[in-house]
């Protein structure tokens, strides 16, 4: 896989992820209407510290009716971004998508879905910077930046867990699975009632996350592919246990970069 191909893959996957996110926002339209939860008339008070022109800009884009139109327009931008035959310059599309994604995150007070919103923004920002140079001149460093962000995310998640004694004993996993905040399948709840199983699963998660950066030390495609498949299974598990579907596609979008930086 060459760098241009890796960028193309990332573009398609992150485009798909953005499409899903935007459709989800449109399906939740009533929650950010003026009779809903995230009312712009309330949320805008968060931005009192910004200079007047910025406040006016946010007020324009993020009020209810304009925001919905804005989301529909975003779908068009993403559609054009994914397809290679576009009449709009690709660089312009990338920046428009970055701008719109950033504004959407501000509409929900910084982020709607935490980590997945952050990784989405980082990947798009990287693609925007890549689009500035002709002939994929910046592709290689950009692919490395995306790879490092991806491995850092896994590694940091593993690091905070291994530092906590309740994660090391498996207790934290039991608390998560049985907390009133999540509704995993009953079979998972019952299985993790067994302390030794919770201990094993907990350590598997910690070891998987901590070992992820070592993918960058590998050059054999079979090893890298195995690790990426493990990553996919890890995210699928998070989808079905915790409903984290956005994480699945956003993190998948970083995998072509990881593959390029290792197997190349």
């Amino acid at each position: 896989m060459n760098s241009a191909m890796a960028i193309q893959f990332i573009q398609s996957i992150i485009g798909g992820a953005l499409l899903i996110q935007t459709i989800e926002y449109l399906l939740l339209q009533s929650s950010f209407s003026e009779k809903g939860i995230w009312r712009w008339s309330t949320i805008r008070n968060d931005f009192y510290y910004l200079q007047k022109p910025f406040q006016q800009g946010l007020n324009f884009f993020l009020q209810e009716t304009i925001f919905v139109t804005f989301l529909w327009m975003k779908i068009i931008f993403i559609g054009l971004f994914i397809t290679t035959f576009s009449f709009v310059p690709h660089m312009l599309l990338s920046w428009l998508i970055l701008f719109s994604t950033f504004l959407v995150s501000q509409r929900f007070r910084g982020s709607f879905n935490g980590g997945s919103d952050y990784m989405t923004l980082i990947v798009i920002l990287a693609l925007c910077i890549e689009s500035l140079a002709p002939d994929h001149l910046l592709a290689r460093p950009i692919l490395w930046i995306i790879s490092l962000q991806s491995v850092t995310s896994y590694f940091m998640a593993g690091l905070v867990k291994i530092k906590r004694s309740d994660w090391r004993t498996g207790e934290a996993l039991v608390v998560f699975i049985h907390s009133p905040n999540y509704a995993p399948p009953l079979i998972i709840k019952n299985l993790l009632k067994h302390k030794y199983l919770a201990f094993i699963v907990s350590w598997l998660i910690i070891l998987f996350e901590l070992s992820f950066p070592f993918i960058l030390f590998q050059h054999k495609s079979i090893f890298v592919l195995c690790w990426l498949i493990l990553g996919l299974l890890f995210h699928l598990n998070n989808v079905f246990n915790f409903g984290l579907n956005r994480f699945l596609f956003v993190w998948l979008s970083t995998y072509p970069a990881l593959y390029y930086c290792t197997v190349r």
Partner: protein
Amino acid sequence: MIGNFFPLILYIGLIIVFSLIKFPAIENKTLNFFKAFFPSWKFFDESVNTPVLLIRTQNNETLSDWQVAYPPPKTKWFHFLLNPQGNFYLAFHSHIQQLLGELTLCDEDETKSFHKLVTYKTTVNFARFKVLQLSAEAEYFQFKISNIEYIDNFNFQVLDDILISPLTEINE
């Protein structure tokens, strides 16, 4: 061989070192505006249960029982593709954590004006939004943030209350 990997080893080492340092929270609002570009990636670092939002309504002087406003939705197989309700729930969950964080940081004076904060107002909206979905006749509603424990699939007991709202008119 090791020389080739030196930058990577250094990078991992730096992550470990930085993870051991406790950095102060960024106070600068403008920098906070761009915080989405600087994530900490500390997922699931707390094992404590997040409290839940309980709501009840009042109609003709009669108060209903407390009920969990937003129970976690069950995940179906197709939710890996599209899961608006699941993501709405996760956003709600993060909101409650933010509310508790802001409540913890409040001093005495700030606690008195807590109801004026955007986070509190948004919590009122969360409660009202649900009450309107559940009962068209309700005149008033009340909410509280509590730690609960499920006795069975439907019934729960309140372990402790963290915040209780006054009775609020449903019509704004």
